């Protein structure tokens, strides 16, 4: 037996690889949040009678609320299975940095939900009557925003890990924290749809980026602490 100890980066990528493979075994599963996003954005034209102007005014709100909710829906499963079947316990006892292994899971999760979301958003925006030239802005905003959403979500997921009905509680914990992302993201989208210049658009995008960076630096530690507590 024995064999050399696995290096930290190798373990990191092993976990990412593992989660991606698990996901691709069930493509249905990680596409669901996107489908959810699509459906929710479509609900608005149904619930309100859709005149173009009104819809366009509504678009940023609808897009971002839908994005926030679907990322929330997805993040609930970030740790759940691994927690239930004892994998997290094994991670905690693996001799590797727990935080980095969990961060790897978050990264994989972002690839599987954040990126598809960002790609789906421009299409949904079109359906809500956004002009084509605005789409790049929409995409960029969601790409940046989804990073911090995933990271904030990771903390919430950790806190609600042990709990039988994490779902609803999770949203109660995560939504308030996500409000800044929501506000700046929607602002950026609104400007993009209104056809603002790159310079105007930059401001909210920078803020979104700043939030993302902040998240990357702080969230993994908080998440690891939360998960450790839930494992106790």
């Amino acid at each position, binding site marked *: 037996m024995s064999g050399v100890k696995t290096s930290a980066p190798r373990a990191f990528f092993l976990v990412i690889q593992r989660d991606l493979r*698990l996901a691709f075994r069930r493509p249905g599963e990680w596409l669901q949040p996107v489908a959810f996003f699509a459906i929710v954005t479509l609900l608005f034209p149904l619930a309100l009678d859709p005149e173009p102007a009104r819809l366009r005014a509504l678009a940023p709100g609808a897009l971002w609320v839908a994005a926030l909710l679907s990322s929330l829906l997805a993040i609930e499963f970030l740790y759940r299975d691994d927690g239930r079947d004892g994998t997290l316990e094994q991670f905690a*006892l*693996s001799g590797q940095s727990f935080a980095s292994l969990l961060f790897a899971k978050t990264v994989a999760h972002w690839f599987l939900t954040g990126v598809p979301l960002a790609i789906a958003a421009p299409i949904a925006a079109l359906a809500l009557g956004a002009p084509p030239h605005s789409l790049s802005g929409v995409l960029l905003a969601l790409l940046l925003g989804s990073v911090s959403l995933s990271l904030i979500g990771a903390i919430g997921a950790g806190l609600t890990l042990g709990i039988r009905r994490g779902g609803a509680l999770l949203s109660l914990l995560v939504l308030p924290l996500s409000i800044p992302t929501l506000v700046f993201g929607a602002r950026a989208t609104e400007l993009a749809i209104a056809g603002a210049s790159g310079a105007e658009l930059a401001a909210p995008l920078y803020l979104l980026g700043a939030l993302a960076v902040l998240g990357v630096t702080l969230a993994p530690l908080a998440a690891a602490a939360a998960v450790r507590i839930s494992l106790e």
Partner: protein
Amino acid sequence: MVRGLSFELDAGRALQITWPNGAGKTSLLRALSGLLHVESGSIHWLGRSIFGDLRAFHDDMAFCSHEPGLKPDLTIDENLHFAAGVRRRCNINERHAALARVGLTGLQDDPARRLSAGQQRRVALARLCLQGATLWLLDEPAAHLDAQGQALVSQLVSEHVRAGGLALIATNQPLALAPDISDELPPARLAARAGPA
């Protein structure tokens, strides 16, 4: 919930904990592994408190808990690859050897979902072997196993121990271990503890 318990275990020996239900076996193992916070008392490994450098301790320790910790969607081999790989590099031959050892040859490419209760246990045992740790903490290793499977467990443990390893086993079906390598832990004085574990 366990109080006033103190023991030490030296290399080359196994310790069986056969307390009655609810006596605190699981809790004790979780505490020793550092998962559960101990209210009072200390745990030492190689003379140093494990809380000093928990990760170094975990490098030498493997915990085999109630849950087999398998991913239903991955094949048995993939399960081993990822679960063991996070700790030590192990190539496919080692993995197949381990599977053969626990009597699951031929199943390595089946999805773990298919396995019955006992078959899952066996995979967990294979993982344990691959992790190549010195100290084994086993919780009910023989649960769900048929007679032949239980024999297998005893055998694995004795080999590990004979090779200088340590094993701490919480079980309700005591394993058949040679007395020269194994002891039993006397029931601890139990006491109510504040709040749940």
